[in-house]
């Protein structure tokens, strides 16, 4: 069983939900980023989404835009992120999902990417701007089921399309909680229940919910209905507010710990 499936299986048995953490690889710089992420992985993170920064992140709000800028500034590119993955893989056993826009992957070459990502120990990929309609060009060279293709379900996705998307996804489904870019403030949990229910009617895959989740209460609320909770901007905001703080890794580790507790609380 691959790492992702195993993680959800283990959690199910522990009656916990997955805490999924997104971070732009290389923010605020490459070595500090490795420190931070390692600390977070060891403090309760269940799944890591490792962001490959892109110059034109059209699906992201200001917090992740700034985080991407810092990462790019520090010299990150896809090759560097794969190298970081390799290092993280030596420190942690949690699933590492690469999170990218399509152009860096396209530029790297889809075949090289598949080979190198697998080799580095990544467990899957989520490409923000590569819908099922276009994704063959990336996946047609894939062999076997060891590399997961995580797909997004949006609040605007109708039921039949959900089913269609679910069919080509693997690992888990990422349910976007808001019509909006990442980090959009405020969370409306009411709607999410319905969406999860609909989605469950067409798939057996675990469902993780993300976008705009920033408080322990949010986490607890989502954890009560979904299989996982994705946190991104909330972590990035902490990085941004503590750029010169030597305890940054510790602060984030504590935050992970706090959030992780909330995924167990039901």
């Amino acid at each position: 069983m691959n790492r992702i499936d195993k993680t959800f299986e283990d959690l199910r048995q522990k009656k916990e939900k997955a805490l999924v953490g997104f971070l732009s690889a290389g923010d605020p710089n490459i070595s500090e980023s490795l420190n931070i992420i390692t600390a977070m992985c060891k403090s309760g993170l269940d799944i890591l989404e490792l962001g490959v920064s892109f110059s034109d992140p059209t699906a992201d709000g200001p917090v992740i835009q700034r985080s991407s800028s810092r990462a790019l500034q520090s010299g990150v590119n896809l090759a560097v992120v794969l190298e970081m993955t390799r290092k993280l893989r030596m420190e942690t056993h949690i699933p590492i999902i690469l999170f990218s826009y399509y152009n860096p992957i396209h530029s790297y070459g889809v075949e090289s990417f598949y080979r190198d990502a697998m080799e580095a120990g990544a467990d899957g990929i989520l490409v923000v701007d590569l819908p099922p309609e276009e994704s063959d060009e990336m996946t047609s060279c894939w062999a076997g089921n060891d590399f997961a293709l995580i797909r997004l379900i949006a609040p605007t996705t109708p039921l039949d399309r959900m089913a269609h998307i679910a069919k080509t996804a693997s690992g888990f489904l990422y349910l976007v909680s808001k019509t909006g870019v990442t980090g959009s403030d405020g969370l409306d949990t009411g709607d999410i229940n319905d969406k999860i229910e609909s989605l469950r009617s067409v798939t057996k895959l675990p469902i993780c919910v993300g976008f705009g989740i920033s408080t322990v209460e949010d986490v607890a609320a989502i954890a009560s209905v979904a299989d996982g909770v994705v946190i991104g901007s909330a972590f990035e905001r902490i990085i941004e507010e503590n750029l010169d703080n030597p305890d940054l890794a510790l602060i984030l580790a504590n935050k992970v710990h706090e959030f992780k507790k909330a995924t167990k609380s039901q």
Partner: protein
Amino acid sequence: MGNKEKPIQNIKQFKAGEYPDSRGHFGVYGGRYVGETLMPALLELDEAYNKIVPDPGFQDEFKRLLRNYAGRPTPLFYAKRLSEHVGGAFIYLKREDLVHTGAHKINNTLGQALLARRMGKKKLIAETGAGQHGVATATVAALFGMECRVFMGTEDIQRQSANVQRMKLLGAEVIPVTSGTMTLKDAMNEAMRFWVGAVRDTFYVIGSVAGPHPYPVMVREFQKVIGNETREQILKRTGGLPNMLIACVGGGSNAMGLFLAFMNDPLEMVGVEAAGKGIETGKHAVTLGEGSVGVLHGSKSYVLQDENGQIQEAHSISAGLDYPGVGPEHSLLKDLNRVRYVSIDDEQAMEAFHALCVLEGIIPALESSHAVAYAMLEAKRRPINEIIVVNLSGRGDKDLGIVSAYN
């Protein structure tokens, strides 16, 4: 690393209307590369576009507005003094500078706003570089009583301040974009971000043959009137076809608008990109000439990018050409060798600008000046019985500040 996909070579028989396929692919280009939140909206738009736009009722209303509101048909003007000054082929100008709001952009915004209205959407958003598309969108929003937000980089807000004022007067909200290079590319990023959040009731009016399907084909459809008129006019006036068509290429909409009707005709077509301060300086916008295949703003096409797939800053004195992407159909046309893409730098464009001012009494947009500049080069080396048609995509009133600041 730079992925240069193998171009399709020398397809001799190019059929207009053969592209794109039903999912918006022009060969390997085009498509829909957007987040899932937008996908349903794009599918809805595609369906609405296919259902509504061919409808005779829609076509009637569109044509009536083009005629009674935008001022079509625009003339095809023989630039006698310019031609004689150059001393070679005859240069004709398709006068898109004369349409309402001063550039070809209005053809497209009228079409999209009509479609938005029939789809029941009452809010428009748009990105803008030179401000012409923003003005054209604000204009149709006013005409149809719609709400309008225009995203514009602060750099462009600076250099195109008159257009900012025009948009505001027309009742639009101009939203300054401070991210990235603060030009067109970032305005488009920001418009897409806003759209992600407002997609249910908001129609995104894209200003060129770029963006995800169906925008490239839809914008081409609304702009093809330029070439249709031109073809009819030149046949009527000269009894034959021109030898060459020339248009500037930012996103590529005025070029596609001119070219489409002539796609199956035996003539040369030239797209002129902006070489900015010179290709060798790296400060240019020569996407087709110097870029490589990538994905930006929802479609696959040539882009200016570094070896890691990060988009590069474009440079041009003309805000409307200052864009590191290009419409996907142009990428195909380049690979097919159906259109030749060349470039003209800031200085050459400025010279052509002044030449047209003093020789013909026409103040062209700086974007269009790139096309004029190339026409002057071509005309000189061609025999006097040949005809070159240049798409004069807009007027230069918006550029007066830039021109006077240019030394």
